[in-house]
């Protein structure tokens, strides 16, 4: 991979470790159902592409330019060439760039950046094409699909730039839908904190592309307040305020609301065979990634 001057948290990604993980992931993911966590769509499927897949009899509507005349002569029936459906190996990584990702010590944001970079590396290592989209209430940054080491460098540059600029004021993964093509696989890395819920956006993405995965980052500090204080809570996204008296009871109720949001999102994903992994923001990126890749979806890290 090309060398790129990176700062934390991207600098914490160890290339050697990434390469070893990629080797493990390649074995794990081979042939896994796309409904499983980390699962990849089968690469060798017929479709549009340049790589030859197989032959099949000609049917009405097939393009004449795909007729393999030599096979037609040999079999005495019109045969056409089919190609590997290259779009099935395109991945779109959607990283939540909303301000809530950077609240409470930026643990979620740090882990989100590292996971996006690590997953990109793995997929590129496995030969897939990877695109990246940073979203908040709209698309904040886009890196077009590509493959190879050079593209990983481009992805890192986009992630680096994302870590520098201010974030948006909402979490709408549906903003990435225009980038998703039918047959693409999409990984959404988000904290799931949206007042309206993310179910509609996830459903939109699922309808737009062939395969969706959700990495839900949770930070316990999001529901922790300084004790014994009269506080004015300020939403980092909407700037709306709420005056409360800090107490353990209030924090407990907030944690319950956070759990409720996570369970709702998880239930939504499971109902639609969308792999869902809930990750504690304090977790190391390697552990979070391995847990997502393990053949059990919907786990908590």
């Amino acid at each position: 991979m090309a060398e790129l001057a990176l700062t934390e948290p991207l600098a914490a990604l160890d290339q050697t470790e990434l390469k070893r993980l990629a080797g493990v992931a390649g074995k794990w993911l081979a042939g896994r159902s796309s409904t499983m966590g980390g699962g990849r769509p089968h690469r060798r499927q017929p479709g549009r592409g340049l790589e030859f897949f197989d032959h099949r009899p000609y049917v009405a509507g097939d393009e004449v330019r795909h007729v393999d005349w030599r096979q037609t002569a040999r079999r005495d029936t019109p045969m056409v060439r089919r190609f590997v459906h290259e779009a099935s190996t395109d991945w779109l990584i959607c990283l939540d760039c909303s301000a809530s990702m950077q609240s409470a010590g930026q643990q979620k944001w740090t882990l989100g950046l590292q996971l996006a970079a690590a997953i990109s590396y793995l997929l590129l290592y496995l030969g897939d094409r990877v695109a990246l989209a940073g979203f908040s209430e709209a698309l904040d940054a886009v890196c077009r699909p590509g493959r190879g080491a050079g593209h990983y460098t481009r992805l890192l540059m986009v992630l680096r730039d994302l870590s520098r600029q201010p974030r948006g004021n909402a979490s709408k993964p549906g903003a990435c839908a225009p980038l998703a093509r039918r047959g693409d696989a999409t990984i959404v890395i988000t904290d799931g904190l949206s007042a309206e819920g993310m179910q509609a956006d996830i459903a939109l993405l699922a309808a737009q592309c062939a395969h969706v995965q959700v990495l839900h980052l949770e930070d316990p500090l999001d529901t922790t307040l300084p004790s014994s204080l009269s506080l004015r809570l300020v939403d980092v996204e909407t700037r709306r305020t709420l005056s409360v008296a800090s107490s353990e009871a209030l924090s407990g109720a907030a944690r319950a609301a956070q759990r409720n949001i996570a369970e709702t999102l998880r239930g939504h994903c499971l109902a639609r065979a969308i792999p869902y992994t809930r990750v504690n923001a304090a977790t190391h990126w390697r552990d979070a990634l391995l847990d997502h890749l393990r053949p059990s979806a919907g786990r908590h890290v």
Partner: protein
Amino acid sequence: MFELRQPELLALLAVAPALWWLHRLHDRGIDQPVAALFLWQTSATDMSQGIRLAAADPAWRRRVSVVVCACMAMAGPLYLTNKPAITVWVDDSPSMFVAESGATRLALAADELARRIGEDFGGGLMLRSLGDPTKSSQADNANALLQSLRTWPVAGNALTPPPPALMDRGRRHWLISDGADPDIAEWSSSAPLSGVVQIGSEKNNAAVTAITARASASDMNVLDVRVHIGYSGTSAGYRTVNITGVKDPGEQRFELAPGASRIITATALRGRNIEARLDPPDPLPMDDSLILPASASAALKVRVIGDCPGALVGALAAIPKLDLSNAPGQPADLLVACAAAGALPQTDTAAMFFVTPESQPQQFRKPVWSTLAGPLQNIALDDVAAEVVDRPVGTAATPLLSSGRGALISLHREADRAPAVYVGLDIADAAWARQPSYALLIARLAELAAGQLLLDPIDAVARGSGEEEIAPRYALAQREVDITPASTGRDIAAWFIFAALLLVLLDLAVLIGTARRAAAPAAAAGR
């Protein structure tokens, strides 16, 4: 039992609810960024107890407590007792120090007061001087009361009783006096006195009331002395006066009629203390003798420097209370200098500076006199030459004699400096020196510089008028004074003020602690 002097001030407590309401509008606490406000909104809505949104700042309790304490302090809280506070007005005129039955009237009055008040000091007892309004003393028990009164000093001034309207109606007022002073008797008739201790029966007292001395008309170095003796007895008495410091010291016995006074004459030389002493001593020994110190009649030492004309020196020498025999190097009381304006000496003693004209002085053909009220008002200078005096520059000068161009004679007074008289007249004018106005002007100017009368002064020492009167001839009034129940307690407003201050300090400490926690939110959150 508590009582309030001004309970209507408790109406100010009505601000307490307003204070609570204002604390609901407080800054709603420290800003705490959160990832998603709806987490907390949902929590607050769903909670069955514990959380009230926009609750008042808890500091409202402390601040309302401060207001309550302040209101209580202003309302004049009293801790009611059956032992009211007492103020004892002490007549500390000399007559209260007459010795009777082996003790002074003041000591006897202290015993009587302690007997009548008993041990009832619960409300506190304060001794106040009638001779010195600023002098007071607290007594918490009978022993302290007796000790204070037995060591009470004699008043140095005339008695000045307080106006009755200004006396604290919340205390019981007592008076201890002998009834010798008519002013105290008149005051007692209108003052709210709850008790009076009138003591004393002795009536006969002779006193040396004054000693005066004046230069003799025949010999300026001899003083004519008069010793004034007063007698306040009710029956004729005999006394012997012994005068020392006079030419013919000795004793002189005479009879004193009731209420009469007598003057004994003598002659004395300057520079001696003159003392008169009566014998035999009477019940008030402190007024049986009096001393006229020698310094009162001593002549002022004058030093003449510069080229002063003989006429000036002669005029100064003619003043009885000036001594021109002062040797050089010895301290002088008055400096006389004649020099040009730029050559006048700097001095810290009183001075007369006669400025020598550097050019031909202006000749006044018409009489010149001062229109200002003062010692020069009646002196007219005829056909004199003079020059404007404009020195020293920048000092505070009062012109005593002026022409159209400026001051001819000016008096300079500055803080922390002796006065100085600057004279621009041509003091060497022989024609003027022969005029009577010359000597008179020099004498008046010397008086101005010295700050005292120098021509025929009378030196005197005297006691206050009527101090020899010791007979308790006036009956002091005593009447029952209503003391309202609210006024018979101990004022405890200070306790509430103290509590309010403590609460303010506590509030400040909490504010500082909160600010520190806000500065380190991560630490406060236990991260």
